[in-house]
């Protein structure tokens, strides 16, 4: 049989287990006595080992096996958890992740044996292993009293009995096994398959109940039974079967097929059963008396109809569907097309004479449907940023050691959702910022104490939604950014002249940090300081349509805020006209629209500004920026669109306003070297192309 169809489940689950191992290890490090954590760790390691073994990944299995040994010692209280042990275990986790990576790419686990880690683990075992005579106690389900070995219910034909007799005469054992799947299990057939595969490694499955076909079609409830012929001891079989995930328990005992008596106190019962069942094929088997309370599930072999009724098990926990992201992309594109089509309808209806109220009503209805449809599709594509940020606590812990600084990461808003494509991209920039905070931001511990700050530095990662944007902040309570130092360095490097530096605000100076190859760390460390950090962060975030902002106070700390749009493909925009060209400005960045008489325009430092409700706002004449002849009479009042980016504002002077519209963002293609002020293009209702202005780049 082929395991490839289960590869995906294997990968997903392994990742989950590794993540939970990592999380729990962090807990263990804090509270070495936490029993819940060690139990959880043990469970995860055990399942990992089992799955790796079943899928035939021997190296991975070997590594997890040794990890499991260590956990088992810890669980039995024979070993103390210290940070050096946790270090090795984390290395082992990294190695496991590497295997998974390889498997994901090539379906092979790779050839790295990771012997050094294994040796290290064994060293820990030996050092602490004075009491290790007792082998690690496996999670071996002993024969429970609640459930019966239902293998007794299997009816045996002559031929099967013959096979078993034959096998025993050749020195094999015959075991009857009943496997109970967890109630929450969704892919029962897959689990059953893994169980079968595990058993087939030991010997031959003579007969199963329900029959193999029914098991494959998931036509069984929570248990199935098999007779196995093998040379191996029963314990091994039970061990390997219970290593399969989501298996509740395994019952089994040896059977003497000669007289079909069970080597068990239930022999008499068994024999009776076989004889009665063999001639009344549809008979329900009475529950075995010895077992006590038996679950009311009886699925006689000859009567699969009862099983069929209940069989298509309803997944209780998880009512979700996995969808390929590409399919969602297609859906999103179709919604985009629909919105374009709707826009053309709107524009056609406003032009034609025939427009009447009924027609307009329908168009408005269509408009609301497409907007809702777009929103729903967008929501489907949203995933919590949790998947990205959950690896950061571990990273900070590593940095703790590497930089020899004590620090703590506090995260909030992990559940904040963003478009899948954005979430995939923000991991690296966030990592850069966190590393920056840890390395440059936080002072060394002794300096902190001198300054009267808590010795342990704090780094915060907060995410929250703000209107149509999601804001992710990386903050620290460290030294803050030394504006004077940057100023001097920038002058020293010739980035700016001393004169320029005089006139620059602190904010402008701080923005220098985002220039390529500008690093202020006095020395290059392993963690950061190669001067490729912040400009990469900035360009990546800008490529996603967002922007980065810094707030800092010397001696108190700094905050980097990343602002990202909720969606990438479709936005609400204000359409404006300049000369005879049409441009779109994202509504998200627009604050107000003002009607300003030309007399109110003042000149400050040779730049045009206006005063609006107490604040001075620089004017940007779009016709100059975009090289267009304005058709407006310069005496007339100007239409000024006030846009904001963070705390700064600007007034964009346009000729006419055309109204608000939902637009689909299209790229201009890779051949055209677009200036930054154009962020894309869109297709209007009349089929014409209009360009989208990026207000952020104009400020």
């Amino acid at each position, binding site marked *: 049989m082929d395991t490839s169809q289960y590869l995906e489940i294997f990968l997903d689950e392994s990742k989950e287990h590794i993540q939970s191992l990592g999380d729990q290890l962090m807990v263990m490090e804090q509270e070495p006595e936490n029993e819940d954590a060690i139990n959880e760790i043990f469970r995860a390691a055990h399942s990992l080992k089992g799955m790796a073994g079943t899928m035939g990944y021997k190296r991975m299995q070997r590594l997890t096996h040794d990890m499991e040994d260590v956990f088992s010692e810890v669980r039995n209280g024979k070993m103390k958890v210290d940070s050096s042990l946790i270090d090795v275990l984390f290395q082992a986790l990294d190695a496991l992740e590497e295997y998974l990576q390889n498997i994901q790419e090539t379906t092979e686990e790779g050839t790295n044996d990771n012997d050094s880690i294994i040796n290290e683990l064994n060293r820990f075992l030996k050092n602490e292993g004075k009491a290790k005579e007792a082998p690690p106690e496996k999670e071996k389900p002993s024969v429970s009293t609640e459930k019966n070995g239902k293998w007794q219910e299997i009816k045996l034909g002559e031929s099967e009995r013959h096979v078993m007799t034959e096998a025993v005469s050749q020195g094999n054992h015959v075991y009857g096994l009943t496997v109970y799947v967890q109630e929450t299990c969704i892919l029962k057939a897959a689990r059953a398959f893994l169980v079968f595969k595990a058993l087939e490694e030991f010997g031959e499955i003579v007969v199963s109940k329900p029959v193999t076909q029914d098991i494959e079609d998931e036509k069984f409830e929570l248990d199935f039974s098999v007779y196995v012929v093998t040379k191996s001891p029963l314990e091994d079989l039970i061990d390997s079967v219970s290593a399969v995930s989501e298996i509740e328990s395994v019952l089994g005992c040896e059977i003497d097929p000669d007289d079909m008596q069970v080597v068990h106190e239930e022999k008499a019962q068994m024999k009776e059963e076989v004889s009665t069942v063999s001639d009344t094929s549809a008979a329900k088997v009475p529950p075995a008396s010895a077992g006590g309370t038996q679950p009311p599930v009886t699925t006689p072999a000859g009567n699969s109809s009862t099983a069929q009724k209940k069989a298509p098990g309803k997944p209780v926990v998880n009512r979700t569907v996995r969808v390929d992201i590409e399919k969602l992309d297609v859906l999103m594109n179709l919604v985009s097309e629909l919105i374009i089509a709707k826009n053309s309808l709107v524009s056609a209806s406003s032009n034609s004479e025939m427009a009447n109220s009924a027609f307009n009503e329908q168009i408005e209805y269509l408009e609301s449907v497409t907007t809702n449809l777009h929103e729903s599709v967008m929501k489907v594509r949203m995933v919590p940023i949790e998947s990205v940020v959950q690896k950061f606590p571990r990273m900070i812990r590593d940095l703790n050691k590497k930089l020899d600084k004590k620090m703590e990461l506090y995260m909030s808003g992990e559940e904040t959702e963003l478009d899948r494509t954005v979430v995939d991209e923000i991991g690296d920039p966030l990592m850069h910022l966190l590393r920056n905070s840890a390395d440059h931001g936080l002072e060394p511990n002794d300096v902190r104490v001198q300054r009267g700050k808590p010795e342990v530095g704090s780094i915060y990662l907060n995410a929250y939604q703000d209107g149509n944007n999601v804001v992710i902040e990386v903050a620290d309570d460290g030294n803050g950014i030394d504006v004077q130092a940057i100023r001097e360095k920038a002058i020293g490097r010739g980035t700016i002249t001393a004169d320029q530096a005089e006139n620059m605000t602190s904010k402008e100076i701080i923005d220098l940090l985002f220039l390529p190859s500008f690093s202020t760390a006095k020395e290059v460390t392993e963690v950061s300081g190669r001067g490729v950090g912040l400009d990469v962060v900035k360009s990546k975030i800008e490529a996603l349509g967002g922007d980065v902002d810094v707030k800092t106070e010397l001696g108190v700390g700094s905050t980097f805020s990343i602002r990202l749009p909720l969606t990438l493909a479709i936005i609400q925009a204000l359409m404006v006209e300049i000369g005879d060209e049409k441009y779109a400005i994202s509504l998200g960045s627009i604050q107000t629209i003002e009607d300003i008489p030309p007399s109110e325009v003042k000149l400050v430092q040779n730049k045009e500004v206006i005063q609006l409700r107490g604040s001075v706002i620089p004017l940007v004449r779009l016709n100059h920026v975009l090289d267009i002849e304005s058709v407006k009479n310069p005496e007339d009042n100007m239409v000024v669109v006030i846009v904001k980016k963070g705390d700064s504002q600007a007034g964009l002077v346009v000729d006419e306003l055309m109204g608000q519209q939902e637009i689909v963002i299209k790229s201009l293609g890779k051949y055209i070297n677009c200036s930054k002020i154009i962020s894309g293009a*869109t297709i209007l209702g009349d089929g014409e192309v209009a360009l989208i202005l990026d207000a952020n780049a104009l400020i």
Partner: protein
Amino acid sequence: MEENLLETQEELELFQFIVVRLGDEQYGINIQYIDNIVRMQHITRVPKVQEYFKGVINLRGEVIPVMSIRIKMGLPVDEFTNSSRIIIIKMESGASIGVIVDEVREVVTLDDSCIEKVVYDAKEERQNFIRSVGKCNGGLISILDLTAVIGDKEGN
């Protein structure tokens, strides 16, 4: 690429070219890279881009940049007439681009004996875009090297 093929294969290789007119000269564009030929339509100007980009057009819901091959080759600026066409070119990389030509004449099939490689002369700019010359019906067709035409030589 084609030259290599010619050398390795004994049989005569056949190539199809679309013959277009730019000014008084005839140029050939290998048909395998041509996605579409559309009539002249409204081109939305894009400010602050390379001079030879006339702007973008909407082709069945896709936004496609359009360049003036005349400006790129240093010829006099285009005058759009009724016979002007935009040829949509799709290279292997997948992105489409439109080039404006004065007229689309015909499709010709040439075998490799009719195609002669021209000596590369970097002095004259337009020469850089011509890889070989095809002889057809007594006339000459300069075959455009699309990678060079589309590529951004200036690198800005």
